[in-house]
Each structure stands twice: as structure tokens, then as C-alpha cells.
């Protein structure tokens, strides 16, 4: 071994100390063969919170959690380093104040010239922040992957699929490798060519409002359709620039089917409750049974007018003997029906007006105008036939009263 002049050794020593003190991102600690801390510097103090006086001479096990210490993890780490010369670990370590730090630690064994381990260099780095980010990402990924009944996928700005989850696979039947990179138009139905326009609109709306919703038919891999409820939200980077979208979709086929069934039944009941009967040439009867709310009145008016147009009926009899009570709302509905029929050129006759109904109509202050009314359907029909005959005679007759 060469002999260096003393001054040079001192100089080396001081520049070595300077170098060590300037390292603050890492803790570089020398341990002896027993794992006892033998050197300390600013970076180590920053990472652990211990000062040199507090820690030099203490075992490395101090940095491990109680559980790890009980398992002898520190000894295992040193042993592994002694065996292979270098040992790398990552895990929770404990600072002086008890705070846990996610640290990456590399042990390097220093061998004595005679053989055997003289000590170790322990290089530690705090990865808590990046660990947190990674955990977060992994957590989000795990979360998305555990969603089995919703499609939660990522699409880029052009509408191409970027990520796929088990929910999406269950919903559409496609495996990730079959869809990732493809445009989502592959889920559109053939007769839904407008979807691409809608999808673009949806993306624009999502960017403007924060999210956009729609419902519609989409295709599965096997070609069957499902009624999808879709929510699209933009994904923005740190600068707020839209980089893509997250699309959440659900299968609502069953619910839609039920709604359709309920609507169909409702329509059938409505049709049953507003039958328009042709009793004579150009004469219709509308028997109204049960209470008349505005929804039913509107439908009743509609079906009556359609029938008037189809049959070119000149007189219509509104039979209200089956209506339990006439309040001002019901009367208003009836009068609107009569007025709409009159605008088409058809005259209305009210029939089945009971004494108490007549009283309440007048007491309610309802203006009936020129509306004709009869108590019995028989009388109403006689009047209707009379009106039709008069009209026919006027139509056939030569120009009278010239």
C-alpha cells in the first residue's frame, strides 16, 4: 500500500466530508459488521430526523417497524448483503418521530482484506411520494377492474378505446385485445349512422358541461343489441387540456323493456277508456266513463278529432252520463274538446246531463255558448240525425234564397 503525504490525506478527508454533507436526497450510512451505525451526515438526518449524536452507535434495527424488527428483517437484509455483496429492499421504515417512510434501501457489503465482512454501506432514499402516486394509480386500476356490472373505459380524443374493464367485457362480450385501439363506432348499430355525429356532439357537451349523458341501442360482439345508458366525462391533464374521455355505460335493456310494456298497457287502457263509436252515417258517439283528468282529456280530444277527420263526421255526441262529477276542470276540458271539434267543422251535442250536473255547471259559471245538451242519449241521437239531415238537404238543394 502506498504511503500518502499527511497533508494530502487530510485534504482528501475534508473533501470527502464536504461531498457527504452535500448529499441530501440520499442517506448514505456506514454500518459496522454488526449492523451498528458508524457514520452520519445531513442527508441521513433529513431522512430520519436523528442527529449524529443520537444515532451513532445504535443498531440499524432502529429504522425498522416493530413488526419487521420482531421478524428480524434487519438481520436478514444484512445477511443477504453479506452473502451476495449487494442487497436491495423497498419498504416502510420508521423516522425518529415515529412517522413511516416508504424507503428504497441498498446495502453493500464492505469486505476486509483478510476476507469476511467489515461493515456495510446503507444507501436509503425516500420514495413515499412516488409510492403514494403509484399506489393511487394501482388503486384506481384495481377499482376499475373490480367493477363488473358497469363499463368503465377510457377513450382518446378521437373516440378510440384506450382501456377496457371486466364490466365492459361482460356487457359487450369483447376481450380487451379485441377493442383497445379500435374506434368505439364498432358498438353502434347499423341503422344508427347518426351516432357518430351524436358522439361528437356528446364529446363537445362533455367538455363544455363536465359530462354528457345519453341512452341508445348499442351492439354486442354477437350482434345482439342492448339499451345502453352512457355517461361521458372528459379527462384533463395538469394543464387542463382534454386528453381523452372516460365512458361509463350500463345495460338498461330490461328496464327499457319494462317501461315499454307499461307504456303499451297504459295506451291500451287509454284506448279502451276512450272508445269512439260511429252510430250513424256522419254521427259519432264518445261515451266518457270515469274521471276526466287533463292527460286523459287531451288523449280523448286527440282520438276524437282523428276519428272526425277519418269519418268526416258532422255531429258528435259527448255522453257524460258515466262521469261521476263535473268540476270546473272537467267542464273546461269538455268545452275545449267541443271547441276543437267545432273548428274542424263538426257540431257537438252533450248528452247524459243529470239534474245535479246541470246545476253545478251553471253554478260553476261555465259558459256553454251554443253547445246543445240533452238528458238522454236517445234524445241526443235524434237531434244529431236531425242536424245531419238539415245539413244534407242544404248540401243537395239548389242555391236557396237567391
Amino acid at each position: 500500500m502506498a504511503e500518502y503525504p499527511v497533508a494530502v490525506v487530510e485534504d482528501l478527508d475534508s473533501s470527502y466530508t464536504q461531498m457527504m454533507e452535500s448529499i441530501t436526497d440520499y442517506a448514505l450510512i456506514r454500518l459496522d459488521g454488526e449492523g451498528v451505525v458508524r457514520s452520519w451526515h445531513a442527508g441521513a438526518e433529513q431522512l430520519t430526523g436523528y442527529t449524529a449524536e443520537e444515532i451513532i452507535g445504535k443498531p440499524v434495527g432502529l429504522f425498522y417497524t416493530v413488526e419487521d424488527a420482531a421478524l428480524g428483517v434487519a438481520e436478514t437484509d444484512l445477511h443477504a448483503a453479506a452473502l451476495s455483496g449487494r442487497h436491495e429492499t423497498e419498504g416502510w421504515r420508521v423516522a425518529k418521530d415515529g412517522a413511516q417512510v416508504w424507503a428504497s434501501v441498498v446495502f453493500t457489503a464492505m469486505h476486509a482484506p483478510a476476507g469476511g465482512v467489515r461493515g456495510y454501506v446503507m444507501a436509503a432514499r425516500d420514495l413515499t411520494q412516488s409510492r403514494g402516486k403509484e399506489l393511487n394509480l394501482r388503486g384506481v386500476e384495481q377499482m376499475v377492474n373490480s367493477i363488473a356490472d358497469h363499463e368503465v373505459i377510457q377513450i382518446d380524443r378521437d373516440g378510440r378505446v384506450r382501456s377496457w374493464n371486466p364490466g365492459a367485457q361482460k356487457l359487450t362480450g369483447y376481450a380487451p385485445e379485441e377493442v383497445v385501439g379500435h374506434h368505439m363506432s364498432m358498438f353502434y348499430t347499423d341503422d344508427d349512422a347518426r351516432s357518430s355525429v351524436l358522439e361528437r356532439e356528446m364529446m363537445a357537451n362533455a367538455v363544455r358541461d363536465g359530462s354528457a349523458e345519453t341512452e341508445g341501442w348499442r351492439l354486442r360482439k354477437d350482434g345482439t343489441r342492448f339499451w345502453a345508458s352512457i355517461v361521458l366525462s372528459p379527462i384533463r391533464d395538469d394543464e387542463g387540456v382534454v386528453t381523452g374521455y372516460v365512458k361509463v355505460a350500463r345495460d338498461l335493456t330490461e328496464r327499457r323493456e319494462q317501461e315499454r310494456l307499461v307504456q303499451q298497457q297504459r295506451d291500451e287502457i287509454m284506448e279502451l277508456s276512450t272508445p269512439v263509436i260511429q252510430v250513424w252515417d256522419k254521427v259519432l258517439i264518445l261515451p266518457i266513463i270515469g274521471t276526466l283528468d287533463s292527460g286523459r282529456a287531451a288523449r280523448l280530444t286527440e282520438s276524437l278529432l282523428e276519428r272526425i277527420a277519418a269519418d268526416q263526421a258532422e255531429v258528435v255526441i259527448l255522453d257524460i252520463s258515466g262521469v261521476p262529477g263535473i268540476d270546473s276542470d272537467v267542464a273546461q276540458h269538455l268545452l275545449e274538446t267541443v271547441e276543437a271539434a267545432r273548428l274542424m267543422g263538426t257540431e257537438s251535442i252533450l248528452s247524459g246531463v243529470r239534474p245535479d250536473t246541470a246545476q253545478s255547471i251553471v253554478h260553476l259559471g261555465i259558459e256553454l255558448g251554443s253547445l246543445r245538451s240533452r238528458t238522454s242519449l236517445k234524445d241526443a241521437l235524434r237531434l244529431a240525425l236531425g242536424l245531419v239531415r238539415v245539413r244534407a238537404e242544404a248540401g243537395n238543394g239548389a242555391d236557396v234564397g237567391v
Partner: protein
Amino acid sequence: MEPTSVSEEIPIMRMGSDLLVTLQGDLGDQTVEALERDVTREVARTLARGILIDVSGLDVVDSFVARVLARLVRIVRLLGADAAIVGIRPAVAITLVELGASMSDVTTALNAEQGMARLRRMRAGGVRA
């Protein structure tokens, strides 16, 4: 039936002693002016006793159109003729009622034939049914 149209936009046909005006498309301000001018001129020229206004070809019948029609009917009456509006479709009738358009004194009929009958009956009875 002898065509006596005086305007390219509004065909007015003579049917016996009555006139049939067929309105089509959109009733704009210009058309309204032409309508009133042409109809009054024709009624005066032909000494028509009645006039039928067919609105089944109109794209839109709203409260504006309703007001125009009601005004036209009043103008025609001042010239000594009766007027009836024909061809109001179901949806239009419902809209007019919902809008509360005041057409209560306007005579209506399902089609031109019934409208003619209606006009004859009005003349015969001397009352407006």
C-alpha cells in the same frame, strides 16, 4: 269552375255564387296583404254570396294565422258575403284551442263540400249556424 286567380300566390276559384280560396305553405306578411286585397277585390267583382277559405294546405296555423283568418271573415261579411273556414286538421284544432285563439264567431266545415252546404244553409236560414 272557372279560375279567376288574380295573384300567383293565392288561387281563388269561383264555384257558382261562391268563391274558394286555397291557402298554401306559409302565411307571411306579404301574403296576408295580398290575400286581403285579392279576396276583397274578387268578392266585389263577382258579387259572391259566400267564400270558403281552405286552410288544409297551410304549413303552420298559429295565433297569428288565426287572427288573420278571423279578420278576413269580418272583412268579407262587411262586403255582404258569408265566410267559412274549411280543412282545419285535428292537431291544428287542438293547437288553436290551447292558444285560446278567438275564432268563436268563425264558421267552419270539414271540407269544401260541407262548407258549400254550410254557406247555403246560412243564406237559407238567414242566421249564422
